[in-house]
């Protein structure tokens, strides 16, 4: 019986990559919190999961979308610092979660290989 690493690791490798790309977007939003006219962007996790669930091949060209702010500012900047910080923090935790799942998968594989 051959072990295919890609299928063994499941979707966690894909979600890990998504989390890194998303944290890049959010870091950009935080860096531009005071740039006039900057429009905050984000990546849509739900869209990626829908694609995966539909059995589609998911590449790395994630869809970006602009954020709809709760309040508009005079300089047309749509970054809301507190909310953006919260998203960045939550995204980092989701990344840790994916990492933990991957680690569990790997230790499961190791047990299988070592036969213990």
């Amino acid at each position: 019986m051959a072990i295919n690493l890609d299928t063994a690791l499941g979707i966690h490798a894909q979600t890990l990559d998504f989390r890194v790309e998303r944290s890049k977007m959010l870091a950009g939003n935080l860096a531009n919190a005071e740039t006039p006219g900057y429009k905050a962007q984000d990546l849509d996790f739900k869209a990626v999961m829908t694609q995966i669930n539909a059995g589609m091949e998911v590449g790395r060209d994630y869809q970006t979308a602009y954020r709809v702010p709760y309040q508009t500012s005079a300089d047309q900047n749509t970054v809301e610092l507190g909310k953006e910080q919260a998203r960045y923090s939550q995204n980092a935790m989701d990344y840790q979660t994916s990492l933990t799942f991957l680690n569990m998968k790997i230790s499961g594989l190791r047990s299988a290989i070592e036969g213990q």
Partner: protein
Amino acid sequence: MSFGEIYNIAGAGMHAQTIRLNTVASNLANAGAAAENPDDAYRALKPVFSTIYNQTNEGKAAGAHVEVAAVVETDAPLDMRYEPDHPFSDEQGYVAYSNVNTVEEMADMMAASRSFETNVEVMNRARSMQQGLLQLGNK
């Protein structure tokens, strides 16, 4: 994965905020400066931020860097004070002082240092994410 890009974005943010703090320091230092004629008077400096989108081969989404496009002088009116005994006073007895608004500068300074800290936190978090990735599969 583009961890390098995250460091670049946070670094660009820190750089932009440092320049902003520099202008604040310069403005506050020259807050009470008088000039012999209004054309030579110190005018408060303000940085203008703009966004640069940097597309990398890995990952299609472009990272949004920030840069200081220009540092401009504000055109707020100068502080003309009536001081006939001042050596710099003109025929009417007025002296041109810089147009720096100290209260505004203090608020700007706090905003700039908070922004700087935010970028430092972004970088720290990205580092711990990458460290976690490096330890993947360790027992």
